[in-house]
């Protein structure tokens, strides 16, 4: 720890921090644009000016210093609120605004824009500039990113991201001085799988998401914390939604999982949730006919009859690697205790390509919870080819899908078509629902509460953004009703209660209670969680400056 003085008060801050981070740790905001703790600091925007007294010096340096390139050290004195600093910030902002169009009314960034916010907080109230503003063109840089060059303040965060984090180096700074423009090489695109992150990094409205462009003013969006389901990494994200639609996913900082980033597959891979095709009510298919809408009690009765006729042990229950821990736990209990069947399976999206970047990895396992499924359902669970062989021996099946774009092998379709009873819980029409007698609407990840266990065995919580669609039932409720119809006596009243029970009854999940999981997740087997401390380092920075 380093003892430093900020604005006349003494603090202890972590070692090795920049003055921007150190100030954030103790709740003092130092405005900045080009600096980001995950990137090298070029100190080009000049916004983070402070008055600096190095350790042992008799008084402050004659010139203002940049906080981003100042490493804190014992005895350092920093002033962020003196008239000199105030004047320095005003003059810097006056320069940065010379060519800025001030088109905030039509800019997507407005409301979450550092240029807007810091001008409001620290800016001058007038400009001496009376010449023409330069108007470089708007341009599409790649599949997901649009640049509005007029708004750019040339901080180069985006360029440094493609050099340091993605290593793809598509972006550059062309020309010089006042003619500077962020650009791509003619004929090439900004099309790496991490490209969306430059939109989050851009402190102004220059780099914008083409997916989000003009879709909503950001202040109308509601937000919950969630976990990206597109691979087993479990990137911490914020789901932003409005009027029952997911509008945007953005990464939340977690230094042990995804840092400040997420990949484009996850960021833009949410549209299936908003599909008009989403299943909204239970459907039943009479032999050879199109499915007809029905109501839940009809299904419960049918299931009761089928279990009575075929025998519970002749039933297979198939979970999905997109189910939460809590859903998987109830699926396991349902198979073991209610149906008393050994036929337990796990359906998963096929393993894809692992993609490595200098400072980010996209996992090859394209399921959010295979780890949780294997821990909860046990080693004996049938997967892949064994799953279909297991189903070939069964007479009836209850299958949980919910895996977008899932495609089944030909053999699997034959086996499913041969079952005497097939109920499928899914969120969209799929190859599974095409064969099902009972098509049951489930929930997408933004409509769920619960946890995923990522490939590092970190249990992380999803908050529910939206109600289940139409008459859809959350899977834990569906399983509770069904269990009770079949003679069990389950009385779960919340997902939290299931999380707690899982922690108490499944040894691998010992200690993974709602309290320890919290916002940052709990690594299985890591013992008691240390008590919460005030946020440090990048966590403190992210809390103050990252979405």
């Amino acid at each position, binding site marked *: 720890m380093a003892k430093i003085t900020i604005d006349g008060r003494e603090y202890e801050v972590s070692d090795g921090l920049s003055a921007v981070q150190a100030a954030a740790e103790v709740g003092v905001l130092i405005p900045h644009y080009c600096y980001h703790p995950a990137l090298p600091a070029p100190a080009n925007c000049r916004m983070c000016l402070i008055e600096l007294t190095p350790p042992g010096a008799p008084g402050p340096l004659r010139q203002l210093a940049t906080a981003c390139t100042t490493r804190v050290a014992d005895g350092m004195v920093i002033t962020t609120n003196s008239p000199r600093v105030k004047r320095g910030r005003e003059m810097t902002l006056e320069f940065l605004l010379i060519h800025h169009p001030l088109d905030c009314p039509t800019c997507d960034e407005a409301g979450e824009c550092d240029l807007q916010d810091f001008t409001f907080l620290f800016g001058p109230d007038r400009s001496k500039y009376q010449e023409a503003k330069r108007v470089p063109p708007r341009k599409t840089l790649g599949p997901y990113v649009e640049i509005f060059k007029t708004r750019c303040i040339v901080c180069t965060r985006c360029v440094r991201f493609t050099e340091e984090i993605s290593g*793809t180096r598509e972006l550059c700074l062309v020309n010089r001085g006042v003619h500077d423009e962020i650009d791509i090489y003619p004929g090439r695109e900004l099309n790496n799988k991490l490209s969306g992150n430059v939109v989050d990094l851009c402190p102004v409205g220059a780099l914008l998401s083409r997916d989000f462009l003009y879709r909503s003013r950001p202040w109308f969006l509601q937000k919950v914390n969630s976990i990206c389901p597109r691979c087993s990494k479990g990137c911490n994200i914020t789901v932003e939604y409005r009027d029952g639609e997911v509008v945007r996913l953005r990464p939340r900082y977690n230094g042990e999982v995804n840092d400040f980033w997420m990949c484009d597959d996850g960021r833009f891979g949410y549209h299936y949730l908003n599909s008009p095709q989403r299943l909204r009510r239970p459907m039943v298919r009479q032999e050879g006919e199109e499915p007809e809408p029905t109501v839940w009690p009809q299904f419960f009765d049918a299931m009761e009859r089928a279990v009575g006729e075929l025998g519970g042990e002749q039933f297979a229950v198939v979970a999905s690697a997109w189910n939460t821990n809590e859903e998987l736990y109830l699926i396991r209990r349902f198979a073991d205790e209610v149906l008393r069947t050994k036929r337990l399976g796990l359906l998963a999206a096929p393993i894809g390509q692992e993609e490595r970047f200098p400072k980010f990895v996209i996992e090859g396992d394209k399921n959010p919870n295979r780890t949780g499924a294997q821990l909860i359902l046990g080693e004996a669970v049938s997967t892949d080819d064994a799953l279909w062989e297991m189903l070939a021996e069964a007479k009836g099946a209850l299958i949980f899908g919910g895996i977008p774009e899932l495609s089944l092998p030909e053999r699997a379709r034959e086996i499913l078509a041969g079952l005497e009873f097939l109920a499928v819980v899914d969120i969209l029409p799929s190859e599974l629902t095409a064969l099902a007698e009972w098509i049951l609407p489930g929930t997408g990840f933004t409509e769920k509460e619960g946890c995923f266990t990522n490939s590092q065995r970190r249990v992380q919580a999803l908050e529910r953004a939206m109600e289940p669609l139409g008459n859809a039932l959350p899977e834990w409720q569906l399983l509770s009703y069904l269990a009770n119809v079949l003679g069990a006596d389950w009385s779960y009243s919340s997902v939290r209660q299931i999380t707690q029970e899982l922690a108490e009854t499944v040894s691998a999940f010992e200690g993974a209670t709602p309290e320890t999981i919290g916002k940052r997740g709990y690594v299985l087997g890591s013992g008691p969680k240390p008590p919460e401390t005030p946020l440090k380092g990048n966590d403190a920075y992210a809390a103050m400056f990252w979405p």
Partner: protein
Amino acid sequence: MAFEFTPDRWERFQEILSHYPPERKQAAMLPTLHLAQEQNGYISPEVMEYVAQLLDVSPAQVLDVVTFYPMFFQEPVGKYIVRVCHTLPCALCGCRKIIEHLTEKLGIGMEETTPDGKFTLLGVECLAACNQGPVMMVNEELYGNLTPEKVDEILDGLE
């Protein structure tokens, strides 16, 4: 049309590379670009892509450097590049007259090339010879204490 170094320039390129650690080939960007421009006359997209590949960088990073420095040309230029200083000391010594004379004599404006491709005329900042103002450079050669007559003599003497 693909660009590549001639054998003798390839040797010079290897010599340039030997000045830098192998994991920092990027450091050789400026001398490599000068070498390429010497061969090609200007930095075409083909040259940028070739240099990027040689130095393990992206073409965007080469574009970044090429557009930063005014001594790299992205369009074909004349056989002789005439750079006239128009910074303050030369202006006080009468460079405007020299520039007027040059544009009239060559029949082109600043930043232009004669139709026969012989001369390109550029206005530049200080050439570090203020004591001899007004000054100009023709390719690598510096000429000071210019008068219209002296300019005629220099240009007429060129092939």
